């Protein structure tokens, strides 16, 4: 599904990623953890095609094709979805119009017929149940006036409607209370299947109690310094990132 080889990248001249290598197969859930400033969000945004980031070295392959030259909308059309850490407000544009336009663009790129308003309404209503969203959100402007939890739920709703092959969740747990966290994680779990890969970017282990990953990677200074199974997250929770930092500094093989 996704192969990242020795990826180096920068933003406005500042180097953030220093050689990331990561392989994600269909159906796998990978958690990427790391302290603040380690490059987690950069990686998420870069995969989604944010134009501010520059690839200096290495490559990203998605379904066997080089991703680096592809515009963000082409990546979306190819099935890559990013749940934003800070979802963006678009005043005056209703949630349903926004999402219907996006979905139909994606469908068009695949040679599928666009959904009409009725078909779409049926679809969005069904998907809203996954994240326990009230139907009033269908006509509310995109993310404007939403609480933090509502914004994050809205991201997962979009994921449910767009049905990506590769979903990247960027700190989807930040700013959520425990009830909202459970709802959001529950929504994501319902979207797990053997063809869909998910990358969960998070600072805390807490989310991983609810979305249980197949693999955990620790990112520090723009590099994956340790990889393991779900137990690695628990180890981090207990000992903090400092322990790994010390290991890395001492050259302990990970």
């Amino acid at each position: 599904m996704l192969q990242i080889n020795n990826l180096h990248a920068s933003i406005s001249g500042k180097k953030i990623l220093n050689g990331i290598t990561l392989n994600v197969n269909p159906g796998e859930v990978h958690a990427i953890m790391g302290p603040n400033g380690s490059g987690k969000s950069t990686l998420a945004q870069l995969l989604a095609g944010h134009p501010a980031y520059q690839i200096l070295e290495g490559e990203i392959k998605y379904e066997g094709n080089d991703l680096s030259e592809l515009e963000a909308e082409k990546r979306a059309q190819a099935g890559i979805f990013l749940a934003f850490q800070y979802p963006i407000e678009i005043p005056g544009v209703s949630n349903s119009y926004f999402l219907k336009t996006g979905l139909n663009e994606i469908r068009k790129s695949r040679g599928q017929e666009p959904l009409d308003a009725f078909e779409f309404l049926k679809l969005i209503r069904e998907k809203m149940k996954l994240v326990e969203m009230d139907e009033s959100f269908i006509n509310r402007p995109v993310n404007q006036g939403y609480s933090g939890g509502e914004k994050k739920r809205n991201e997962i709703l979009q994921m449910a409607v767009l049905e990506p092959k590769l979903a990247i969740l960027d700190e989807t747990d930040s700013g959520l209370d425990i009830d909202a966290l459970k709802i959001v994680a529950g929504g994501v779990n319902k979207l797990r299947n053997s063809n869909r890969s998910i990358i969960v970017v998070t600072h805390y282990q807490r989310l991983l109690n609810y979305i249980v990953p197949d693999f955990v990677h620790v990112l520090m200074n723009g590099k994956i310094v340790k990889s393991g199974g779900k137990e690695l997250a628990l180890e981090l929770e207990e000992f903090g990132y400092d322990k790994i930092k010390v290991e890395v500094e001492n050259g302990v093989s990970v």
Partner: protein
Amino acid sequence: MQTIEQLVNKEYEYGFVTNIEEETIPRGLNEDIVKIISSKKNEPEWMLEWRLKAYRYWLTMEEPTWPNVKYQKIDYNNIFYYSAPKTKPNLEGLDQVDPELLKTYEKLGISLTEQKRLTGVAVDVIFDSVSVATTYKEKLNELGIIFCSFSEAVKDHPDLVKKYMGSVVPYTDNYFATLNSAVFSDGSFCYIPPGVKCPMELSTYFRINAAETGQFERTLIIADKGAKVSYLEGCTAPIRDTNQLHAAVVELIALEDGEVKYSTVQNWYAGDKDGKGGIYNFVTKRGNCAGKNSKISWTQVETGSAITWKYPSVILNGENSIGEFYSVAVVNNHQQADTGTKMIHIGKNTKSTIISKGISAGYGDNTYRGLVRIGKNASNSRNYTQCDSMLMGNKCSANTFPYIEVKNTTSNVEHEASTSKIGEDQIFYCKQRGLNTENAISMIVNGFAKEVFKNLPMEFAVEAQKLLGISLEGSVG
């Protein structure tokens, strides 16, 4: 990601010139020119007298310098004040209209023959200085509605013209309105008799074709007691590298329980990306809510012109009368706009609403200027004003100058303002959901302007949305 520079050179779709023989009169402005214009139109003596009074008054006036716009001084003696297609327009039927003209309007998407047959919109078409066709006239006649060119109205309905012309915008009003009063060539006239609701949208389409010609049209709309009308105005001009002056006057009058809704989509040529050429759009538009419970509503979408300078206003004389102003003004490249409204509350319990959305891109400079005046007898009056500005890129600017004067203690005035910047993040968010850059900008901007668009008649709203997309293509880099 595509940048401004790559996308900005979207051609102005309406920039072609029609090859048609035009009759013009010598350049320049003096009493003789005013007389020639009047005689070309076979006007009665009283009309000429009015023009001459205006001309003489104009000589004593100075061009205003207070608007927040910059342009080279206009040489009023180097402009043609009258230009008309040589083929005599036959106002009785379209069959005898010059085929070149009909082709022009078809290119503009205004197929007169089709309009006549299919749609529910009656159209008056002004080509340079004269009205070339008015559709649906007979059908309207049956209801007692008068919809014709201004010249015809002067001849056929002199009492109405004498009574109302200059009653809202007197010939002494301001530099450009006074100039218009002296040299206006044609325009539309509309009278809705008492109790009649006009069953279709009335529409005027203005087209400047001839070079170095000023267009000075006058529109006068009267809704008598209990009458209602919705009126649409559209405008385009060819691409030329010299600036052209458009100084129009629009007067609206609503008597007791009368309603006038006036919608404009202004798409005059805006000049090229370096700011060369384009129309100077210096227009006076004003309505008088003369009777009790009357209502006047202005909706404008301003995307064209090198410089826009206009303040569609409402004088709220009648008790319980309502004035509204909804505006979207877009400036891109080197365009400048100084636009807004005046709501003058005189009667009791009068209400006004102002929603202004300014969008600036490129090197554009966008100013909202508005006056809300509540007189001492206008007790229990209300105004709500909302001014929002959106900026794209770092080289444009937005300004807001609200003037508020309240002379009684029972009235209530609210003013809200905001400025936002359309950012890469918003566009990236849309792109991440599958939209390309153009669609993303169009969606964001249309969302921003939604409160205004919803006041436009359906067909116009669709056109306006498309226009907004085109005007701003590639303006985020």
